[in-house]
């Protein structure tokens, strides 16, 4: 469990949206999907996951519906709304640009060249 990473602020929402890209899931399945997708690197605590889910539902990015789980239990399923899908696309783009920029800075082997003036 030492490899467990802290969630960076703002990344949780985009991960949840991404997890729902392939179809409706209940909260447990979302946490499971993120854990497995990140090779157990990202572990979601329930105390963080559910407030995030409810917030996204409130914003209209997710829609919820009661249904039956694989083991025939009553569960609340979340799915992306059109707004949520749009949000996911734009956040992925932002995240990629950010990650690339951070990577560039961290991967640098020499200080930048002086800027030209005029």
């Amino acid at each position, binding site marked *: 469990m030492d490899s467990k990473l802290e969630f960076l602020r703002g990344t949780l929402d985009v991960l949840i949206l991404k997890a729902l890209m392939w179809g*409706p899931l*209940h*909260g*447990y399945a979302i946490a499971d999907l993120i854990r497995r997708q990140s090779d157990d690197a990202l572990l979601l*605590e*329930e*105390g963080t996951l*559910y*407030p995030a889910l*409810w*917030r996204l*539902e*409130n914003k209209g990015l997710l829609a919820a*519906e*009661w*249904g*039956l*789980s*694989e*083991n*025939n*239990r*009553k*569960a*609340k*399923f979340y799915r992306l709304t059109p707004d949520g899908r749009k949000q996911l696309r734009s956040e992925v783009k932002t995240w990629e640009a950010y990650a690339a920029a951070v990577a560039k800075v961290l991967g640098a082997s020499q200080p930048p060249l002086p800027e030209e003036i005029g």
Partner: protein
Amino acid sequence: MKPTPLWRRYARLFGPDPEADVRDELRFHLECKIDELVRHGLSPEQARREAARGFGDMRALMQIGRRMGEKMERRKRLADYWTDAVQDLRYTFRTLRRDRSFAAVCVVILALAIGANVAVFSVVNTLLLRPLPFPDSNRLVWIAPPPSPCGISCATFSADAYEEFRAMNRTYQDVTGYEAFTTPDNLRLTGHGDPLPATSIMVIGNFFRVLGVKPAIGRLFTPEQASPGPHPVALLTDAYWRRQFDADPAIVGKAIDMSGTQTTIVGVLPPSFDFGAVFSPGAKVDLFTPLDLEKERNWGNIVTLIGRLKPGVTIPQALDDGNRVAPDIYQSVKRPETKGQYKDAFIPVRLKDYVTGKLRRSLIALWSAVGVVLLIACVNLSNLLLARAAARGREFAVRGALGAGRGRIVRQLLMESFVLSGAGAVLGLGLAMTLITWLAHQTSVALPLLSTLRIDTRALGWTVLVALAAAFLFGLIPGLKIASGNLQEALKDSGPGAGVGRKHQRIRSVLVVTEVALACMLLVSAGLLLRSFLKVLDVDLGFEPDHAASIQVDYDESGKTPEEAGANRMAVFGRIIERINAVPGVEAAGIVDFLPLGPNREWDTPWPQGKKPTEREWPDPLVYVVTPGFVRAMGMRLQGRDFTWADGPRGERVVLINASAARIYWPGEDAVGKILMRGDEKNHEVDRVVGVVNDVHEESVEASTGAQIYYPASQQTPDWAQLVVRTKLPPASLAPSILRALRELNPRQPAAEFRPIRTIVDHAVSPRRFFMLLVGAFAVLGLVLATLGIYGVISYSVTQQAQEIGVRMALGAGAGRIQRDVLFNTLRLATAGIILGSFASMASARLISSLLFVTSPWDSRVYAAMALLLAGVALLSGYLPARRASRIDPLRALRVQ
């Protein structure tokens, strides 16, 4: 996700429950996690503990979930509500479009009622609610003693009194005034072709500063200009500047020729300042000149007083202050005996109350009248909607059966009311705007502030309020009626003639009776006001206003001594009257300085010879300076003789007095030939009464008259000259020849208006006519609406009873019998309404009794006439359905079922 089985769908049978939702959701997660951990080899106990760890504080988490869930639930409900409302709205438009004529009738009725309400509200708002158009106007006061028979002379002050009061008081920031004894067209503007008449008012130099009026161009009078020396100055009103000087932006500093004096324009007043609107309803003023207090010092009472109170000073404080200084104030400082003459005269009244206070009762009556019109309109609409609702019973039943709740159906009905009343309000606002614009341009109505009439935000707010109130009023009864009715019953009901219809019919009859009663109340009030107005027109004014007209005459009367000036003046007047008498169609002509029902003046207190001046309080008669012929030209009745051209400046001093004066001076005796004294006991003048004329209404048509005295123009100096001409020809056709004749004698004669005397009377009674016409119009509107209501109910009942009537006819009832029955039914409704209305009328008549003139609020003729009118109109409105009923074909009617 699997499809949810049917039984699961009822999990939230009793409405949404966010708390349970959160609990279920978290429990599911917890169970899944425990299962997983057990699968990985943990004991159930260990697994439970391990699983719970990730949730942190479970209670706090559930709290968050519940709150967010509730928020969403609320939002969803609101969204649902709006969706429903939009759906209702769309449905309303669809149904109203289907019933186009019904909708049109409703909207027109509402537009008339709402339009009348908004227009009257605007008038009330302008005259009563809105402050005067001056900054801090609630600190402005009118200072005058209470009204007395000697007219504005006793409501004004001398130059000395003004200056002393201004210096001695402690409660006023400043005091100002204007010269009260002007007549229209008192100046002559030359230099622009023919001489043109102009009206000026002389104001004390600080007048505009005290009111808080700032010039649009140029500046106000400076203190030096306030006492005019060699350089006379004037301020133009905006209207005159535009009309006469084409809004010349460089007008300031230019000189114009006013009655032979080069006058420099120092500024133009803003368009918002309308002197006439505030101080002299209906008057138009062209320019203002500074009042020369020095020159006017010997002229007695000449200025009105207007004060601006210091901040925080109350009216009682100002009154105390006025009473404190009054005993030390002289009418003329040169005459010690005039000290204290203005005791109890410095009484401040808020300027607003002075301007519109007298109209308060009339306005409130008018406001109530439109309120009643609105009520009638609402009752009428209630009735129409009920009739429609009865016809739509099956529609509602079907909707109910398909799952629409009762609340939803009531909401649907209210929505219809709101849509109708909204459309009515929009149309009504348009009507009101037209009416208001028209009213604002009525210069012949002597109501203050009328020219400032407009629809402002407050009037718009009132429109919305009235529309909403109306929608509730007329929408609620039909809505509740439908909601309380049994929907299934209606569904089973195969249509007209059934129980529900009968119940509707009863409510509708009650509504119609109410409507008739309200209309009756309006009609009686209007009738009483009309009768009062006719009585006012019947008042013996003391002169014949018809077949006479007057024109302001320009003349020159220079002379070294008063006698010489008098002789010159008489020569000029003599020539004018001789020339005018020669104009074809002129029956009589004479000159006076103040016409009746306008400004007036008094100047001293005569007493009869043989009595003492101090013996009793002798009246201050109103004074008129006239030429021979005036009494005849005016159509007054004379006992004794008129002045003659032989009554010269050096002849015996002669006067005419009116009957009231004669009664006071020589009660029970013939006044002709008696002597009046003026001045004081030691030093007095003596006038011989040569004739007694009848009382002339001077101040107003309705008030009684006091003492009046007439002096010959040869012996006293007139202020102006109004030529009065009596003719059988229409004045307009005579005007050119009169003006031509005057110009022949005096090329400087301005093209003043040749005004029929009747217009002066009309102007004086115009406020009463205005209110009477408006209340009358509302009463007619109420009558029409009530008639419509009766027609609707009777016509509907005939339709409903078609089968019954058919059966009766098949059994041998004649057409006449059927017709009589329907008419009897109509009359029954009308009679109930009239009886109820008569009682209501007595109450309302008491409220307007102070507006009546020589008319009893219980005038039986008015009540009888209005009852007959209502009954007649009701019968008329019942006649059409009655005829239809008598023509029902029994076979067809029976086959319908």
